[in-house]
């Protein structure tokens, strides 16, 4: 199994393509993407609808398989991982925050956060327990631990999802439009928490979004269009990001 142990990159894809269907109805979602995420960075992946940004994230996170190209996560080349290996990889090395439906309705807050450990059939170690306690405090969940998801607001649910994603200290946390369902104030709060996890704890985060305000919290913004990386920018203001997006739209229309 080829590894890239000493690499500064926490996740990497090279020559990645992904197409669905066959023959005349074939749809190409990714058409040769090369991208490496830096360890400890908060990276935003932007692009219009249909640009392939979600597909890219799914493949990088071990949720979907590549048609061609190679995929690395941490020290593993996961390109040819089978379902069982990918499942363990997701459980132990990856964290997820989705737009909605992040939590299991039958478990309370604590149960949801501890789920990845329990699926592994183990209790958190002493240091992991301390880390989870820290997360409960810093995310303001301390007095909500026995609540079920339906008793929480959208923002609170998203904070529980963040706690769960960070609890196992994964290589990368993948966030798919994490603020898509929140009002702008709550959304900003969630983004600050993600940015803070990267800045203070060195947590690598990759966030898919089409919202320039959300992307402005990231250390780096990668733009996708028609299944290809078209721009790669450092931290930018929402205005600058909007301008880039707008320019991309106009180019596409021309």
């Amino acid at each position, binding site marked *: 199994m080829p590894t890239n142990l000493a690499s500064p990159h926490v996740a990497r894809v090279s020559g990645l393509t992904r197409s669905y269907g066959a023959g005349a109805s074939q749809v190409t979602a990714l058409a040769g993407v090369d991208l490496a995420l830096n360890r400890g960075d908060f990276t935003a992946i932007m692009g219009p609808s249909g640009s392939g940004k979600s597909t890219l994230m799914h493949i990088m996170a071990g*949720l979907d398989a590549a048609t061609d190209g190679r995929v690395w996560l941490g020290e593993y080349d996961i390109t040819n991982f089978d379902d069982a290996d990918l499942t363990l990889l997701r459980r132990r090395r990856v964290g*997820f925050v989705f*737009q909605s*439906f992040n939590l*299991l*309705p039958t*478990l309370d807050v604590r149960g949801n956060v501890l789920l990845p450990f329990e699926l592994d059939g183990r209790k958190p170690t002493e240091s992991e327990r301390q880390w989870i306690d820290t997360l409960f405090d810093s995310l303001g969940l301390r007095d909500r631990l026995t609540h079920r*998801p339906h008793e929480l607001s959208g923002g609170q649910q998203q904070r529980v999802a963040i706690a769960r994603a960070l609890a196992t200290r994964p290589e990368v946390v993948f966030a798919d439009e994490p603020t898509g369902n929140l009002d702008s104030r709550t959304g900003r709060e969630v983004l600050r928490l993600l940015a803070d996890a990267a800045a203070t704890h060195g947590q690598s985060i990759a966030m898919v979004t089409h919202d320039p305000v959300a992307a402005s919290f990231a250390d780096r913004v990668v733009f996708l269009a028609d299944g290809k990386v078209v721009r790669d920018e450092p931290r930018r203001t929402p205005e600058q990001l909007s301008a880039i997006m707008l320019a991309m739209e106009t180019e596409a229309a021309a």
Partner: protein
Amino acid sequence: MRATLLVAGLAAAFGTALLQITGVLAAVILNNPVLGDHETTLLMLNITAYVFIVIAVYVSGIVTTNTVATVVAGRRRTIALVRLIGRGAGEERARIAREGLLVGALGAVIGCLVGTGFAALVAWAAVVAGLFPAPGYSYLNAVVLIPLGGVVLTTWIASWAGSRRVLAVRPTEALGNAVELDSEPAGGGTGRLVVAVALVALGAGALAAGIAIGQSIPLGLLAAVAGGLLSFTGLTMEAGRFVPPVLRLVGGLFARTQPGRLAVENTLRHPERSSRMTIGLIIGVTLVTTFAVTMQSFRDFIAVAQRAQPEVYQGTSQVLGSITAIFTVLIGLSALIAAVGLVNSLSLNVLQRTRELGLLRALGTTAAQVRGMILAEAAALTLTALALGVALGFLYGWAGTQAVLGWIKGSPGFLWPGVPWGMLAGQVVAAAVLTLAASVAPSRRATRVSPVAALAVD
């Protein structure tokens, strides 16, 4: 709707076959001048047939109500959308009930034909085997309209009852991603509870009276049967109050693993739904157990009495054996209808949890863990039905025996219920088979859910 069709078909086929066979037997008996006392024999034959038909149709009604309720729960978004566009809630509900009427009618007609065919086959086989002469019986008998009508009516009413929740769907649920409504109240209002408790109390009193009367004269059975029916109806009405606690208790068996704990939580998520899912099976198991315990207790009683007065009880055990076998098959069919309901409900539940299963897979739940979870769900439900049904069956079976046989010659007066080991083992095996059967299709579907499904916004 396939399940409703199957359930209606099974109930109708069973009812038709039973009545047609009864008709054939009646023709045979009437043609035979040797057999004395025609009237009583025919009456008993008919009463028995109708009792079993009522039980089967009752179970099919409960199963259909539950199926429709589950389907409605899964279609909430679609229903909300047509409500949003402007269809009335009442209209929507009437549409579902009408669909039920149609499916029930189709199932009943198919079942009727199958049942008649089966009866004709049995009669032909009996004639060929020389058991009795050709009966000269016409299968074009108006009597089949009774199970036919009963099944159609029951399916219609059950669809109406099961679609009650349509009225609670808010049109705005079609917008945004409304969270699934988790809280369905378990059990009905206070009024229903009072009626149920009264029925159970009355039934228990009648059972006790039956036992007391049965010690001296043979009429105790009447009081005991009435008591059994009353108390069981009361229990069925409020199943939502006592099934979930038992389910939780049984669920303790699966609490060692995370998938097991999740499975138990899943079965308790809709207490009303789980109760309905299990109540059909509880009825089936209770009936089979009641019967088996009664027969076993009969044997024990007779054995004791035989020792006291051997000349009175010659050759009784063979007769008891064949009666037990026939009745067990007849009762077992209601249990089969209940089993169809359980399999279907579990499939629908899994279908409705696609996103949740996707989330579990995304978070690192292996396919084997998902399979284990669904197997544990099915097992928790069947075990609960088995435990409750066996407990109730022992109670009723023992009371029935005391009421029937307390007075007979050489009776020991009081005897503990006989334990029908063979029958119990059979039920455990049947429950295990049902658990596996109920979880195969949902498991396959669940493990095919791509984790990407959880991330999709719809």
